[in-house]
């Protein structure tokens, strides 16, 4: 019996082309084992340049203090925390794809999970920069940890959402890294066993941890993946929930709302999937992996985008309704004057957010659009612009005019160092991603092989045989693997 599990003919194949196990290995290892293209070098050098700019910007901030940024008493959080929430949000898609879709037994995740998880880890690394450097006296950064100190010991405030964030983000980073790397072990072993050059043998030999593919190891590996997925699922939901608590537990108009946790999580998934689309559309083209990251994958992810985009839209409307219904003047002013009124100083950012996040994804109700690569790419950028402005709207339009008109802020614009810091995290993100795409298999080789005979294009036709079998015969085959052969 060559079919590991039956899958309906109706479902389109998710591995295209006439593949066998060896071909899968060849295809995915090729970019790792060949010299990088010119395009790779260009991208890599641009990323390094951005990273350098970010380095300079942060250095300026460390030397001269947070005064280098246009923050003040009124707008205490500006671009930095906007960027923090934006990056954390992007970091949600990877774990969603690898953990939640694993629990839901979604076969298509195997084509995209490795790259998406890597993206998650890099995005969380970028996110972490902002609160850390925002501290100003960053050399005292370890004060956020509960360690026995000479000040009492005076413990950190365990009741504070900002401390919850410390735990949430660091746990999320650690668990994502472990999940990602444990999945990488078998593929690193594949690269090790194929390696011809000495350095490659040594590098992948170390990276593979001595993985052999023993049946007992696979059994434990499967158990580990399943439990880690089970742990990561509530974890990924908790992380953005806790990030939203940074706002929701305060009494600032526009923040003081119970809808934030689900609204933030939906937004995170929304922006995360958009970033996955941006990266994978380029990756599949440049590394010639169209057979593994197929148009089906893109379409499914576009469906997630239209779903989560609409959830976010409902959340925006609910917020408006609640502001009106609450009859609290402060809330109403924050929503109807500071945001909704296009002629108010930041009105434009609210409508930009609405346009990018709520209106534009509706195009994905049309199948043709979901399967159009150009539209998808354009949309993926648009969504992330929109999601950046969502955080900007929440933070800046709530802060710049609070309860006391005498302390209202003037128009806040970032300084060059704030912009440089943001661009620097792009540098960090893409430098990591370029290195990843060069030295790591961007698709989970073992997992593709695992689903190949169920979802592979050339194996799909064999489902016919099973389709015409009697139920008794099928059940018998499933229960007694290969007994009759």
């Amino acid at each position, binding site marked *: 019996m060559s079919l590991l599990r039956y899958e309906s003919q109706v479902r389109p194949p998710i591995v295209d082309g006439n593949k066998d196990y060896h071909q899968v290995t060849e295809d995915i290892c090729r970019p790792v084992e060949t010299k990088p293209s010119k395009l790779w070098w260009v991208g890599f050098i641009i990323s390094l340049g951005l990273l350098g700019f970010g380095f300079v910007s942060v250095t300026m901030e460390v030397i001269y203090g947070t005064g280098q940024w246009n923050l003040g008493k009124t707008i205490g959080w500006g671009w930095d925390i906007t960027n923090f929430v934006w990056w954390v949000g992007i970091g949600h898609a990877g774990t969603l794809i690898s953990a939640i879709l694993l629990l839901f037994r979604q076969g298509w995740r195997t084509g995209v999970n490795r790259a998406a998880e890597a993206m998650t880890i890099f995005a969380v690394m970028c996110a972490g920069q902002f609160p850390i450097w925002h501290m100003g006296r960053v050399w005292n950064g370890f004060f956020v940890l509960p360690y026995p100190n000479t000040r009492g010991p005076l413990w950190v405030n365990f*009741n504070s959402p900002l401390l919850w964030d410390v735990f949430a983000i660091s*746990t999320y980073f650690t668990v994502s890294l472990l999940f990602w790397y*444990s999945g990488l072990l078998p593929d690193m072993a594949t690269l090790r066993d194929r390696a011809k050059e000495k350095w490659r043998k040594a590098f992948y030999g*170390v990276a593979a*941890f001595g993985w052999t*593919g023993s*049946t007992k190891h696979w059994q*434990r590996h499967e158990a580990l993946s399943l439990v880690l997925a089970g*742990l990561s699922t509530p974890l990924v939901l908790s992380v953005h929930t806790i990030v939203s608590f940074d706002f929701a537990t305060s009494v600032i108009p526009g923040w003081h709302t119970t809808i934030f946790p689900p609204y933030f999580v939906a937004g995170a998934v929304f922006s995360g999937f958009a970033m996955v689309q941006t990266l994978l559309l380029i990756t599949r083209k440049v590394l010639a992996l169209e057979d593994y990251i197929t148009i089906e994958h893109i379409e499914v992810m576009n469906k997630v985008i239209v779903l989560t985009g609409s959830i976010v839209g409902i959340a925006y409307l609910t917020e408006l309704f609640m502001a009106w219904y609450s009859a609290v003047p402060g809330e109403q002013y924050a929503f109807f004057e500071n945001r909704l009124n296009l002629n108010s100083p930041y009105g434009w950012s609210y409508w930009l957010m609405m346009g990018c996040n709520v209106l534009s994804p509706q195009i994905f109700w049309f199948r043709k659009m979901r399967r159009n690569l150009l539209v998808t790419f354009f949309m993926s950028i648009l969504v992330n612009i929109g999601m950046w402005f969502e955080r900007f709207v929440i933070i800046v339009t709530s802060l710049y005019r609070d309860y006391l008109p005498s302390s209202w802020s003037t128009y806040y614009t970032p300084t060059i160092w704030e912009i440089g810091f943001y661009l620097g995290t792009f540098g960090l993100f893409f430098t990591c991603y370029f290195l990843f795409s060069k030295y790591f298999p961007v698709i989970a080789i073992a997992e593709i*092989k695992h689903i190949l005979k169920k979802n592979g294009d050339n194996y799909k036709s064999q489902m016919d045989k099973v389709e015409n079998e009697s139920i008794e015969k099928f059940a018998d085959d499933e229960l007694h693997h290969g007994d009759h052969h």
Partner: protein
Amino acid sequence: MSVKKFIVGNFYDEAVLFPAVKKVRRAGYKIHDVYTPFPIHGLDKEMGLKDTSLHVAGFIYGITGTTTAVSFITWALTVDWQINFGGKPFFSLPAWIPITFELTVLFAAVGMVLTFCWLCQLAPFVKKDHFNPRSTDDTFVMAVECTDKTSEAEGIAFLQSVGASEVSVQYRETGWWLGRYDRDTTRFGKKVEAAV
């Protein structure tokens, strides 16, 4: 350190591998291990391997994390240094749920991965042997351990008869790098089937 002899057969189709494992075990050969490029569900059962209890370890690590968080925060905020936040009780459990949850997940995940690495003896710089480097590519490699009574020729012929493509005899020094399955494996036809 003793040297052991193995009869190693290559398979290229899991559909052939499954019945082969059964037949080899039924014939009384001792399968040292089967190396596969990806997880094959049911193969562990077919080989008579016991279930892993890694998830139980994960649960224990998890509740350790829960207890650590709750007991430490309770001690820090109610005993060691009480801080009055707007007249709220010192023991404010609901506000500790996020950190408690995060530590539960952190302990469980880190603990499980370390346990996994320990059980499988995986670590950087560890070198192990799996008889055929193609087993991480497209080949399912079955290694049958030879004892004094095993006839080499018969063993090779038998593996070929159950569908192995290339069969070779290989010698390996025994040690932990070859894995330690004796404790995990039950004899065919004894415990596993008795339990069913």
